[in-house]
């Protein structure tokens, strides 16, 4: 930090915002100095995204003031915010999936030549921004053809392309693995050097430690306190967020694996039709799966779940061969999948919490296979809401209006309610706060104890190391290695994840 007293760039005073049944923000204050990285933390539903959306002009505040360079400003819309130099990377992906990567990066700010879009410039400049975030795709690729992780990188590239003074990143790394995240950190540090201020939201507390000059915490829509650089550590952050200590994060007891619950032999997925995948999963075992973005983990799970075709190879569940052509068949065989893309695949956004929670188990709970058992649905929902501490006014709230992390909890709850034999989890803790993460780990633990075989894909190395009995690592469509618990280390995983098999 420079020696002369830092000048406040952006300030927020007494912001309040209500939604039907929810007081999302209440008298929140925040300030941001030029060239500062501020980590904004808080539990799911604490109001972080809401506050950022207000700054970005997506939603108006009910009360309070926003000051830029000491002057009160009115942010009436997204364009206003952009004009003030405030850019936001949204927590949820928001891309025009029909357009190219380049078109998305420059959407709303297309360079023109003689009144027409200057495609050459877009192409050239996009390449630069994509390189910065470490994404190696052609700018002419249609965004809809990219995986979630890559789309998130495009979002970041897009935000970088705005010549912003304040760059807000709402959980930018939730679908990124360590390697991509590190590239992003380099970018952020570089921005800081150039005097750009960054508000960084994440539930990966380690990232805050690495990046932040200061931490500010929200709890239940109110300021819970700040931590200067020197005081940033895991326990203090957690304490501010949840108001109590959380110790014993990964409460793992090592299981004795039971019978083989899932066996996969020579499976080939459409994304990597030439690579054959084989592995086994035992009852009561928790297996982590690590890899970089695009390693083919999601594809593997999708193929096991019958979403994408199995191009060859065999799958057995508890010794019985299955060939699932659809999720329905997979579910009937006892497989459940918590998908990576909650908005597209996990949730019916316009349905209520209860309806979402019950959707997958409707048939199971139905007394005769036809009529719904609404009492049971309500019961399960109540249980899950309590167990996972879902923050919602009631179980009839339309799920669109829940915060991202609380939505994710519902997606997980929906599948836990199913009591599967094999549970596949694709980035299950994406966007989930520390407290709830612990709940989910606890649930995984319980399920494993009851004999469920769990395969979970995660890009958060800490979590993989903390939770798995055994870890599989993928690289470009291949399983490059398997690490038992006692051989787990960050280096070992990264070596395998980058395709370096000898080192392991």
């Amino acid at each position, binding site marked *: 930090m420079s020696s002369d007293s830092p000048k406040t760039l952006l300030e927020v005073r007494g912001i309040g915002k209500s939604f039907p049944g929810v007081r999302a923000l209440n008298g929140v204050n925040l300030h941001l100095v030029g060239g500062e990285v501020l980590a904004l933390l808080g539990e799911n539903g604490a109001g972080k995204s809401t506050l950022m959306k207000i700054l970005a002009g997506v939603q108006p505040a*009910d009360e309070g003031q926003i000051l830029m360079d000491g002057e009160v400003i009115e942010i009436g819309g997204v364009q206003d915010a952009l004009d003030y130099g405030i850019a936001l990377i949204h927590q949820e992906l928001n891309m025009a999936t029909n357009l190219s990567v380049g078109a998305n990066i420059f959407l709303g700010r297309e360079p023109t030549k003689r009144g027409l879009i200057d495609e050459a410039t877009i192409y050239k400049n996009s390449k630069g921004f994509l390189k910065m975030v470490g994404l190696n795709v052609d700018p002419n690729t249609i965004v809809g053809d990219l995986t979630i992780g890559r789309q998130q990188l495009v979002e970041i590239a897009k935000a970088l392309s705005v010549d912003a003074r304040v760059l807000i990143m709402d959980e930018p790394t939730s679908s990124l693995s360590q390697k991509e995240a590190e590239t992003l950190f380099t970018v952020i540090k570089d921005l800081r050097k150039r005097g750009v201020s960054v508000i960084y939201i994440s539930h990966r507390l380690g990232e805050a430690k690495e990046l932040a000059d200061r931490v500010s915490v929200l709890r239940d829509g109110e300021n819970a306190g700040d931590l200067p650089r020197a005081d940033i550590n895991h326990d203090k952050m957690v304490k501010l967020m949840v108001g109590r200590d959380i110790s014993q994060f990964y409460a793992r007891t090592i299981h004795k694996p039971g019978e083989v619950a899932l066996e996969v032999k020579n499976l080939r997925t459409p994304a990597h039709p030439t690579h054959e995948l084989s592995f086994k999963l035992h009852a009561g075992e928790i297996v982590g799966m690590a890899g970089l973005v695009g390693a083919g983990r999601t594809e593997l799970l999708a193929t096991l779940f019958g979403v994408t075709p199995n191009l060859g190879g065999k799958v057995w569940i508890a010794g019985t061969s299955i060939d699932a052509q659809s999720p329905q068949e997979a579910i*009937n065989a006892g497989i459940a999948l918590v998908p990576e893309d909650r908005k597209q695949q996990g949730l019916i956004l*316009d*349905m209520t919490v209860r309806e979402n929670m019950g*959707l997958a188990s409707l048939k199971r709970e139905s007394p005769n296979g036809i009529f719904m058992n609404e009492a049971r649905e309500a019961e399960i929902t109540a249980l899950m809401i309590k167990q996972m501490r879902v923050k919602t006014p009631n179980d009839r709230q339309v799920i669109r209006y829940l915060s991202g992390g609380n939505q994710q909890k519902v997606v997980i709850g929906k599948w836990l309610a199913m009591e599967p034999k094999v549970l596949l989890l694709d980035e299950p803790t994406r966007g989930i706060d520390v407290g709830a993460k612990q709940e989910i780990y606890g649930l995984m633990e319980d399920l494993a104890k009851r004999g469920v075989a769990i395969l979970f894909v995660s890009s958060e190395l800490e979590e993989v190391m903390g939770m798995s009995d055994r870890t599989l690592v993928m690289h470009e469509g291949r399983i490059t290695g398997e690490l038992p618990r006692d051989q787990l280390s960050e280096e070992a995983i990264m070596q395998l994840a980058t395709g370096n098999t000898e080192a392991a």
Partner: protein
Amino acid sequence: MKQFISKFIGSQSEGAKRILGIFVLLMVVYIVTAIINPNFVGAYNQENLIRRTSLFGILGIGVALVIITGGIDLSLGSVVCLVGVGVPWLITDQGWAPWIVLIMAIVLPMLIGLSHGLLITKLRLQPFIVTLCGLLIYRGVTRGFTGDQTAGFGNELKGLRWIATGEIPLFPGFGIPFPAIILIVIAVAVGIFLNRTIYGRYLLALGNNEEAAKFSGINTDRMITLAYVICSGLAGLAGLLFVLDLNLAQPVDFGNFYELYAIAAAVLGGCSLRGGSGTILGVIIGTALLRVLRNMMNMAFLGFQRAEFAVIGAVILGGVIVDELAKRAVAKKRAAQKQK
């Protein structure tokens, strides 16, 4: 009871709110017409209105299910034509046994719906294109096989025709037209299906987000196909009732535009063309509104025959605008109260 109704019209409280506006509009039109011409509320006219609403309501309920899946069915009117013309033509002109023809009248439309559903789910063709081709094909075929001749039952089959023309006497001078009974049975059945069975829930879910529904283990293809089968099946039934009521059907224009009336009724009744929402009660109210408006023109504004369409359009548009503005005002008032 209140709970039962809410169950029947849809679990989403949204549904009830949407219906309210259109229901108020229906009441306003009703009362205004009654004031201008008291004969409007006479038993005879009410019976007529109920019968018409019932016939068109059956179409509306069918297409509502398709709209809930996020699809559309433009072929309704032509299915009405196919059945409405085909049944009297086969029975009267070709001398087929009525029972065979009636079975065909039920089965054939369902097969048509099945083919729509399969083309849409298995070949992933756009519903608009598939059912537009259906619109063209079924009418063309009907015109072809009948040689464009008007078909009717003449003085035959009065017993069968009672299904459409008969009524259940309630008190002297007024009875419930039999088609109303059919509509109620269908509406209750479909309402229960939609709101109380797991399949109805599946339909609503996939209409909102087909991919997420698939990921939840729902056989979305089968559910979508089912919606088209029911829709075409009900269109066939309506076609049958129409011709039993009218006793004549001309291939070239029988059922023309009925798909539009049906879709309009469904949309007025709260179905969103983006899929995922809709209530059966709303569809019936929407249908009733359209029928009452047409009746109003004859009963109260005979001199404005020509502007009939304009009046109907203006009433509907005015109604939805006022409805929207009212909702906003209410929301604003609530927000203001809350702040205090």
